[in-house]
């Protein structure tokens, strides 16, 4: 037996603060995005189904946090990101893309608005350095630019907080059952006009009772007993109800233990990156490096709704010219049992190549292989693709177009 996918790069890999916890839990460790991360603890399939039916705890401290502060932070982010960021309400999150001048996707990310003067960007681990360098360069360029009003973009700082922050995610329909009893709002006296100070990021935030948070809203809380301050958002990457919890890197081990010590509250188990991928893919959420990269435009990826029409942003001009899609993203399932993998060829009924697999995996919920692919003919109507095949190591496996997502959250 020869395992082709073992890819542990000994050089320059980082560990999250929870690395020893993962080892102690018997995790299978892999190298991902420059980090040693748990792929699974016992079983990807069991962990996946536990999140769909109960809840799961993920260490996603590898993800990046970039803090943008100052009076000009809003207008600056509006220029660098595709989404309208400055105009969203405080305590809300926007999903956005960050594009290069050609309209290619540098990264997809979420932006947390604490106030008009303070924002947090949450970036993919593999892209954090690149994003930070890009954003920092844009800031310097704008500050130097003679075309810009001299007063603009002077009150602005961009900082990479990634090493200072631990990030946990609790996902699944029962997530409330564990988070509600363990957490409490920082102040019981809500005065909406009053701002509080968030010690983790050193800035002001608005109070919002955490049990009232809607999807893509956040607030600051405290975990009882362990007395740890956290930023908590109703968000995730699984297609389930869930929370993402930001704490100081120094506190994340305590919080991990506190949640696991109370796991009976929601039948929770630790979940590795393997199930994180199968969960996100059943929910048809894009993964950078698969559905997105710098050669793919937001139109190709079907993400044009995240391009603001109300403002100018980097990449917009280039996109106006290439408004025609160059390729089209489709989703499919297979009748056979072999799993399609990234970059495998898609063949039409005459076995002519028509595209490439973006993501391929096994769906634990539907118990079958599923995938996404870019078809080179952007005019193709997915439902018209009747007979097509995936070339899986020389076997032509019949595929069938599926309307995404593969899994919808139970209401």
């Amino acid at each position, binding site marked *: 037996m020869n395992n082709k996918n073992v890819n542990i790069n000994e050089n320059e890999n980082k560990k999250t603060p929870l690395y020893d916890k993962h080892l102690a839990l018997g995790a299978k460790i892999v190298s991902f995005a420059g980090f040693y991360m748990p792929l699974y603890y016992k079983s990807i399939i069991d962990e996946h189904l536990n999140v769909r039916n109960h809840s799961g705890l993920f260490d996603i401290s590898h993800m990046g946090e970039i803090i943008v502060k100052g009076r000009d932070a809003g207008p600056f982010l509006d220029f660098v990101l595709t989404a309208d960021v400055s105009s969203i309400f405080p305590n809300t999150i926007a999903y956005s893309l960050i594009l290069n001048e050609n309209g290619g996707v540098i990264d997809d990310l979420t932006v947390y608005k604490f106030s008009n003067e303070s924002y947090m960007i949450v970036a993919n681990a593999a892209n954090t350095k690149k994003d930070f360098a890009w954003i920092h360069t844009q800031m310097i360029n704008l500050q130097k630019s003679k075309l810009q009003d001299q007063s603009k973009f002077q009150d602005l700082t961009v900082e990479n907080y990634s090493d200072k922050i631990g990030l946990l995610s609790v996902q699944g329909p029962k997530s409330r059952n564990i988070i509600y009893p363990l957490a409490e709002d920082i102040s019981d006296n809500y005065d909406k006009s009053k701002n509080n100070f968030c010690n983790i990021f050193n800035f002001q935030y608005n109070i919002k009772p955490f049990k009232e948070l809607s999807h893509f809203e956040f607030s600051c809380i405290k975990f009882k007993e362990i007395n740890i301050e956290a930023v908590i958002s109703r968000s995730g990457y699984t297609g389930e109800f869930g929370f993402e919890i930001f704490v100081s890197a120094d506190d994340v081990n305590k919080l991990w233990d506190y949640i696991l010590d109370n796991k009976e509250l929601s039948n929770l188990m630790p979940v590795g990156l393997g199930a994180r991928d199968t969960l996100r893919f059943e929910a048809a959420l894009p993964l950078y490096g698969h559905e997105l990269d710098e050669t793919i435009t937001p139109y190709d990826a079907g993400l044009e709704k995240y391009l603001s029409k109300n403002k100018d942003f980097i990449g917009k001009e280039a996109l106006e010219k290439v408004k025609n899609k160059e390729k089209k993203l489709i989703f499919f399932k297979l009748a056979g049992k072999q*799993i399609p993998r990234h970059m495998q060829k898609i063949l039409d009924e005459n076995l002519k190549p028509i595209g490439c697999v973006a993501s391929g995996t*096994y769906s634990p919920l539907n118990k079958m292989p599923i995938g996404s692919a870019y078809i080179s003919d952007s005019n193709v109507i997915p439902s018209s693709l009747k007979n097509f095949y995936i070339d899986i190591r020389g076997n032509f496996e019949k595929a069938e177009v599926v309307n995404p997502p593969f899994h919808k959250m139970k209401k």
Partner: protein
Amino acid sequence: MTDKKNFYFAKSHEWLSNYSNNDYSLGISDFAQSELGDVVYIQLPQAGKQYKKGEKIGEIESVKSVSEIYAPVDLTVKNINSNLNETPELINNDPYGKGLIAKVELHNPSDLSLLMDNNSYELFVKSNHE
């Protein structure tokens, strides 16, 4: 725990175990299945076919990876474990029992001396993967 006194292991993590005369069961080791994770598909060898030592006899696919299975010595496949078509997870749950891949006949039983016994294999796994 399966008593693995009469098991022979290849560096590529397949095992052979004698059950009568020249007839052996063939499977993959517990270590191998734990490295793969949840097995979701296996391409079984062909019954009746002869394979040379080191030749690919099948493929195992888990959620995250694909691995090839090799013939640990020259052999002929007598029967395949077709239960694995419907329940490939037997390889995870019982790699030395119900998760065996095939029954095979060895061409030269003396080839077994080229393989490792259980103790040597455990040391091999330790020294290579820890």
